[in-house]
C-alpha cells in the first residue's frame, strides 16, 4: 500500500486522457468534428494509431491502472482519486494531458483539438476536483496559435502552466517559439516541457534507433538539446521572466550539461554576444525539473550531490501516474531525502512555482 511521505504532497505530472475520442467531440467545433471524421488526425510518423516504438506495456501504463469502468488508464477521475490522490495524500496534482492535439501536422486542426482538450479538462477534471490543476495544451510548433490559447485560458482558474512536448519541429530557442515565451511571461505562467512528441526528426543525430528503450533514454538528450537552444539563442535574455519546467526528462544530466555549456561559452562567447551571463547561471535561475524518472546511481549520495548542484529549490516531485515508469514517493529515491530537501521537493517548490496555496487543497479558484 502507498505510504504518505510528506504532508501536502504535490504531484507535478499526472496524465489524464479522454476515455475515447468521442468524449472530446462535444468540445470540438462542428467544422473540426467533420474534419476529424472524414480525414482523421495526422502526426509525423507512419502509424494511424499506435507507436513506431511500441511501449513497454499497453498505453505505457501500469498494469493495475486500468479503471474498473473499462476506460483507458487516466480516464476515470474517480479511479484517480482512489488509486493516487487519496492513498498518497496528494494535496495538489498537475494534469499534463498528452491526448491528440499537440504534434498535428495541420496546426489549425492541432489548435482546435487543443482547445477541445483544455475545455474538457476544465469541465470534467478541474471543476469537480479541487486538488487538481492543469496544463494548457497547445499546438506548440505554431507560436501564434499557441500564444492565443495561453491568453484564452491563463485567467481561468485551475490552469497553472502552458505545456509542450520536448520533440519539437525546431530547437525551441528559435524565433517561431518566441510568441509562446511572451505569452507565458505576460500571463505569469511557467512553460512545461514534457517527455514525448513526434516532430519528424530522429531522436539520435545518426538517425532512428531501433528500440523503445533507446527512445525513452533519448528523451533525456532531447531535453538537453532544448536547454542548449534556449540558452544560446538568448531566450532568457529576451524573456527574463520565463520559467521552464522539464517534465519527465530525468535530472542527473543537468550539472554535466551546465559544465559543458560553460566551457563552450568560454571558447565561443563572441558567437553569442547577446548572452550577458554564463549558461549555468541562466539554467540555475530559469529551469525547474520534475524528478521522475529519477536516475539510479551506484551510490545514493551521488544523487543527493546532483540535487544540491542543480539547486534543491528547483526539483519537483512527480509520479507520472498512470504510466509504467511511475515513481512512488516513498520508493523513488535510492535513499530517503534528507530533511533539508524533503519539504521542498515533495511540496514547497511546486507550491511556490505554481502559486498553489499553502495548507490543504482549496477550490481551484483560489489557486
Amino acid at each position, binding site marked *: 500500500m502507498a505510504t504518505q511521505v510528506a504532508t501536502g504532497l504535490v504531484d507535478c505530472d499526472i496524465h489524464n486522457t479522454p476515455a475515447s475520442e468521442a468524449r472530446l467531440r462535444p468540445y470540438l467545433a462542428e467544422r473540426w468534428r467533420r474534419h476529424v471524421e472524414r480525414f482523421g488526425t495526422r502526426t509525423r510518423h507512419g502509424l494511424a494509431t499506435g507507436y513506431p516504438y511500441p511501449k*513497454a506495456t499497453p498505453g505505457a501504463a501500469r498494469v493495475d491502472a486500468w479503471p474498473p469502468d473499462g476506460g483507458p488508464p487516466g480516464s476515470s477521475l474517480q479511479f484517480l482519486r482512489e488509486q493516487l490522490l487519496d492513498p498518497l495524500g496528494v494535496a495538489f496534482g498537475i494534469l499534463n494531458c498528452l491526448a491528440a492535439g499537440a504534434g498535428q501536422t495541420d496546426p489549425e486542426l492541432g489548435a482546435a483539438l487543443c482547445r477541445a482538450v483544455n475545455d474538457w479538462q476544465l469541465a470534467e477534471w478541474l471543476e469537480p476536483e479541487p486538488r487538481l490543476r492543469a496544463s494548457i495544451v497547445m499546438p506548440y510548433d505554431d507560436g501564434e496559435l499557441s500564444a492565443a490559447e495561453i491568453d484564452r485560458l491563463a485567467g481561468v482558474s485551475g490552469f497553472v502552466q502552458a505545456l509542450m512536448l*520536448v*520533440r*519539437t*519541429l*525546431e*530547437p*525551441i*530557442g*528559435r524565433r517561431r517559439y518566441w510568441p509562446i515565451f511572451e505569452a507565458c511571461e505576460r500571463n505569469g505562467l511557467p512553460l512545461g516541457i514534457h517527455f514525448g512528441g513526434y*516532430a519528424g*526528426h*530522429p*531522436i*539520435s*543525430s*545518426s*538517425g*532512428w*534507433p*531501433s*528500440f*523503445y*528503450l*533507446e527512445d525513452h*533514454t*533519448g528523451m*533525456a*538528450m*532531447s531535453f*538537453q*538539446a*532544448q536547454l*542548449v*537552444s534556449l540558452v*544560446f*539563442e538568448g531566450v532568457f535574455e529576451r524573456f527574463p521572466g520565463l520559467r521552464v519546467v522539464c517534465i519527465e526528462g*530525468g535530472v*542527473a*544530466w543537468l550539472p*554535466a*550539461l551546465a*559544465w*559543458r*555549456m*560553460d*566551457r*563552450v*561559452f568560454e*571558447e*565561443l562567447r563572441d*558567437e*553569442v554576444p547577446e548572452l550577458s551571463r554564463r549558461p549555468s547561471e541562466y539554467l540555475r535561475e530559469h529551469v525547474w525539473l520534475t524528478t521522475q*524518472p529519477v*536516475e*539510479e*546511481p*551506484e551510490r545514493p549520495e551521488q544523487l543527493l550531490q*546532483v540535487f544540491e548542484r542543480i539547486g534543491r529549490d528547483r526539483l519537483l516531485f512527480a509520479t507520472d501516474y498512470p504510466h*509504467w515508469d511511475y515513481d512512488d514517493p516513498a520508493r523513488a529515491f535510492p535513499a530517503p531525502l534528507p530533511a533539508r530537501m524533503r519539504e521542498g521537493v515533495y511540496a514547497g517548490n511546486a507550491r511556490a512555482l505554481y502559486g498553489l496555496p499553502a495548507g490543504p487543497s482549496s477550490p481551484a479558484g483560489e489557486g
Partner: protein
Amino acid sequence: MIDCDLALAAPPVSALRDHLEAYWRDSVRERGIRSLEPSYELPGRAPRRPEPGPGTTLAIVRPLAAIEALHAEDLAAALAGGLNDWLRAEWLDRDPRLRGSITVAPQSVEAAVAEIERLASDRRFVQVLLPLRGLHPLGRRLHWPIYDVCARHALAVAVRPGGNVGSAITPVGWPSHLAEDLAGQSQAYQSQVTSLVLEGALGAHPALRVVLVASGVTWLPSLTWRLDKNWKGVRREVPWVDRPPSEVIRRAMWLTVPPVDAPLDALPELLAHEGMAAMLLRAGGQGPVPDGVNFDANARQAYPRLGH
C-alpha cells in the same frame, strides 16, 4: 607518455594525388575537389604540422577529414584510401613514435571493410575512425561487419566528432550556432553509446574496443544511471543485453581527455564514478586532466596493438 589523439588537419586533396588511381586523380582535378575540412570545428583550428609533446613515446595520429560528407561512396572510398596511404608515407614512415588511424568511407560498409582488410597487416594502424554522426546509429546491425573485422585484427574503433550527413545534430532539428553544435556533441555521444550497448554490438564482439574521441566525459555517469534503470524495467525488449549497460560500457569503452567538460574542482568527483579512472585516455593538447589516472596502462588496454 602515450598521446591517444594527435589531431592533424586534413591535407588538401591535391596532396593525395600520388596515392590515388588515375581515374580519381583526374576526377578531383577536373571537378575541383580541393578540401575535406570538416564543418564542425572552428575554421583553421586543427594544426597542419602537429608535433608530439615532450616525453611522448607513442602518438596516435588522427586526420580530420570529412570523408563521410560526400554522398558518392566510390569517391569517398577512393579518398579515404588515398588519405590512409598519404598518412603512411608522410607521417608513419617519418617518425617511429607515430601510430595511425584508418579512415574509412562509412557510406559503404563493404568498402570500409575492404579498406580495413587492405591495411590491417600494417601494425602501425591501431584504430579505425567512425564519425560521431552518420545515417544510422552505430549499434545497428548493418555496421557489424566493420566491428567483425576490427575485432579480428585487434583494431580499436574510434568514434570521433563530426559527420554532418543526414539527421540534425539535435533530436529537435537544426540549431543556429556552433556553440549549440559543440554542446550537442555530448548528446550525440550519449545516443551512440546507448545504441552500441542496446543493439548488442558490444556483447556480440567481446574483443571490440571503442574509444570516444574528444567526447568530453561528464555526461557519462548520468547516462549510465538512466540506462541501468531503463534496462531493469524494459530489458525484455533487448534480451541479448544480459548485464547492466554500465558494465558493458566499462568493459569496452574509453574516452580521451583533454578536453574535460568540467571545471577543475569537479575532476576528483568525476573520478569517484565507478570505473571512470580506468576509462580515460590521454590526448595531447591543452587543458587539465584528472590526477591519479594511469593513462598509459589504460591506452594499452584500449589499443591491443600498442602491446605491453
